[in-house]
């Protein structure tokens, strides 16, 4: 609670700054939204001016910002001039897809990365360790869209185990939902996996040289217990920070994968809104991403104290 009180002003400040700069950046982009909506050819300047007036684009930037911020605070991010859809509704309706994707990806990545990092660190320098690191490096250097295409080629086109595109919602059919989510989640996970593994391996190797690990061995504990109970927790700080950042960045991370797999998520919404110059939609989503980032990182800060009692009692 004390932590919350200390961090809250900082949290709000960050959000305010982020919202301001997003608004400015998006508004200062070249290209007139009114022109985009009406189409470039054969529209009279009067019609454009009329639309600008309706959209409020004739008012000063700062006024427009506070106007937008005011409604944003009450949960109204405006209405897309292209589709007429409420931005808030659009985001909320697509959010479950993106969250499921992101969470699945991180769970898969962690489930593979933690044991692999333990094996790697325990046998550091061995051939096994070098092979694991080598595969990790290879995975890390493959761009996300390539990974997605590979997976589609192998598991959807080649083996036919999973659908190549499309989404079935969890409420319609949980089994089909998992089938449709697995490949996209896997292509996100493969890239994260390598990063998590390398981070954790480095920290584990460091931890394994600590005196308290020697003491744990001197107690006659089996190696698996030493690795899981004694070494993992003190080694997982950087891992948790990065997982937190990635969880916050799930939406932006999912843009390409959602587009390739044609999933109705927030990432794809953002991508399409950018293409259509749907400013209100872009602003809304970016504000949403930034909020997610800040909130998740705050939660990560709270989690440090779960990992390390010294942080807990320092408060």
């Amino acid at each position, binding site marked *: 609670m004390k932590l919350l009180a200390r961090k809250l002003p900082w949290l709000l400040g960050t959000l305010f700054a982020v919202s301001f700069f997003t608004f400015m950046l998006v508004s200062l982009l070249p290209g007139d939204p009114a022109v985009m909506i009406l189409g470039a050819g054969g529209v009279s300047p009067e019609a454009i001016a009329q639309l600008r007036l309706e959209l409020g684009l004739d008012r000063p930037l700062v006024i427009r910002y506070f106007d937008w911020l005011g409604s944003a605070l009450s949960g109204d991010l405006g209405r897309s001039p292209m589709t007429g859809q409420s931005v808030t509704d659009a985001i909320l309706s697509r959010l479950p897809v993106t969250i499921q994707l992101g969470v699945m990806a991180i769970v898969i990545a962690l489930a593979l990365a933690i044991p692999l990092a333990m094996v790697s660190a325990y046998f550091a320098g061995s051939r096994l360790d070098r092979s694991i690191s080598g595969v990790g490096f290879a995975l890390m250097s493959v761009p996300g869209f390539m990974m997605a295409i590979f997976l589609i080629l192998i598991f959807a086109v080649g083996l036919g185990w999973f659908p190549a595109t499309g989404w079935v919602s969890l409420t319609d059919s949980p089994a089909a939902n998992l089938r449709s989510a697995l490949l996209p989640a896997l292509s996100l996970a493969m890239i994260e996996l390598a990063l998590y593994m390398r981070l954790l391996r480095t920290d584990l190797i460091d931890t394994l040289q600590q*005196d308290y690990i020697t003491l744990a061995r001197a*107690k006659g504990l*089996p190696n698996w217990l030493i690795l899981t109970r004694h070494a993992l927790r003190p080694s997982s700080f950087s891992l948790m920070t990065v997982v937190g950042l990635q969880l916050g960045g799930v939406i932006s991370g999912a843009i390409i994968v959602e587009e390739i797999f044609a999933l109705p998520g927030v990432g794809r919404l953002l991508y399409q809104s950018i293409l259509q110059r749907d400013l209100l939609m872009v602003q809304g989503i970016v504000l949403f991403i930034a909020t997610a980032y800040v909130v998740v990182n705050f939660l990560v800060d709270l989690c440090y104290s779960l990992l*390390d*009692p010294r942080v807990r009692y320092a408060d």
Partner: protein
Amino acid sequence: MTDANQHEPLLLRVTGLTVRLNSSHGLVHAVEDVSFSLARGQTLGIVGESGSGKSVMARSLMGLLPRRSIAFGSGSILFHTDNAQEQDLAQMPDKLMRHLRGPAMAMVFQDPMTALNPVLRLSVQLTEPLRQHLGLDRQQARSRAIELLAAVGIPDAAGRIDQYPHQLSGGMRQRVVIAIALACNPALLIADEPTTALDVTVQKQILDLLARLQREHNMAMILITHDLGVVASRADYIAVMYAGRIVEYAPARTLFTSMQHPYTEALFKSIPRINDPSHTRLQAIPGRPPQLINAAVGCAFAPRCQYVQPRCRQQTPPVVEVPDAREHRHACFYPISPGLNREEGDD
């Protein structure tokens, strides 16, 4: 090697222990041809400067050196378990060795600030060996752990047990480390500089605690220190280590009355004494202990020895017995004590 130790049955007999380690600078000759034996309930003090191979030797007895760091190892570590069987720990695979760590031998570490896991409660760290080796259930192990904490002199043990290491002072933490070591009632306790990292006022308390527990449990103890004064009154036997070798070994009283090796003498003179007139300068040993990388020819102490002779730089002196003295050995061509036949030890 006719160490009698007649009164008590033999617990440990180390013969020709040699350990060479890989390091980024090359091969480290950490332990060279070390031999000694230890009976139940007795204390062996191992004295030497930092870098003399004391800790590596202790860890190799426990089988705690990382396998990959060992470039070469030879010699035997015969350990008599409870049923009087003799086992060579040097040949024992880690899977079996693990079951001896805790119940047969345990270790107290130098720095209590780093020896306890910062993220685990004392209860977890104390009950682990109890549950692992003695098969106690959670509740039994917990109450036994509280007894252990009380036995090492921690006030309010029942309340302290759920704390984390950082909530305890250095001396208290060392008591916890000792409690962990004693958990399974080991026959041998290896204390690797147990007081070096502690305040002077706490040092004596911890040493006294170790002595009391040793008596109560009839444990043998290997007390490793760089301070000859620490072992003077507490050890039955003293081994002086230099550059990975035992350069002198004797019953504690014999060592102080008729030390043979110039290095022992130099160590002895570097202890401040209460009877010295004030402002007496301490006699520091000139030079530095040798790097143990790529063993040099000749006696390792020769460059710092005030009695050095040409021969010392050409040949490595073998370990020889002092004639007419019980269990007194040294490795010097020109031992210092007068009245003893120097030529005897020459060849």
